[in-house]
């Protein structure tokens, strides 16, 4: 990894990696490097979207998956760039169980000149126990292009 990339990764960690919203949800960045990311979200009462089952709201998973995809791309970039989600598709396979951490893992698929692609999945306990999967396209705003 280049020095520039180390700098960028550190900036990401301090800046857009730890967003106010992820913090408010209670999410924690476990790692992200070389086009892969990992977030942990401890179960908490304010995340519940279905009071009958205690499952978290679909939007909670959308937030984690979106963020994890962005992080995976950010960690794969060779030069700093701004990023904006163009679209995100989320498939919900299973409702989450209460009282268990949710783990999200992401992977950058491709970085183009203008657009980058990533995917992510969320699970509890074991990667086999998949809650949701996402694919996203992200617009890149390369900083050097503006100079």
């Amino acid at each position, binding site marked *: 990894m280049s020095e520039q990339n180390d700098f960028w990764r550190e900036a990401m960690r301090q800046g857009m990696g730890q*967003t106010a919203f992820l913090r408010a949800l209670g999410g924690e960045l476990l790692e992200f490097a070389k086009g892969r990311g990992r977030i942990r979200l401890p179960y908490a009462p304010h995340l519940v*979207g279905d*009071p009958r089952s205690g499952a978290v709201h679909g939007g909670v998973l*959308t937030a984690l998956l979106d*963020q994890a995809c962005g992080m995976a791309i950010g960690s794969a970039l060779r030069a700093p760039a701004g990023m904006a989600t163009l679209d995100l598709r*989320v498939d919900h396979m299973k409702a989450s169980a209460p009282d268990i951490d949710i783990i999200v893992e992401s992977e950058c698929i491709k970085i183009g000149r203008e657009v980058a692609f990533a995917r992510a999945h969320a699970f509890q306990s074991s990667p086999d126990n998949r809650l949701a999967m996402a694919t996203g396209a992200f617009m890149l705003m390369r900083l050097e292009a503006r100079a």
Partner: protein
Amino acid sequence: MIDVAAILGSVPYCAWLGVSARIEDGAVVLDLPFDAKLVGNPILPALHGGVTGSLLETAAIAQILWETGGKTIPRSVDITIDYLRSAGPLTTHARAHIVRQGRRVISARAEMWQDDPARPVASFRGHFLLASSE
């Protein structure tokens, strides 16, 4: 008529976000006041994409509850969000409509806007499983 606002109020995540519901022209409209905790990009600043997704999905769920008269939250099967503009630090609104209602699955679309309904910030489509009466 079911009380959509009361049902949403009983959903902890919606209450925590600060979402409220009202009925306008036969459809549920959601309002989400800006709050610092909702920010995803502090430089712009912009709402987190997950907030946008949460509000749109909730709009679809609220509209489904309203139209079907159901009280149990329908389950999301798949959703797609198109992010059209950056969502600024303003009150945000969303509204959904049902495209097709089958026996078990509902297809819904939703839009989100801030100061100008003619300039949507994001659009959404999704499939929802109607809660079986277990």
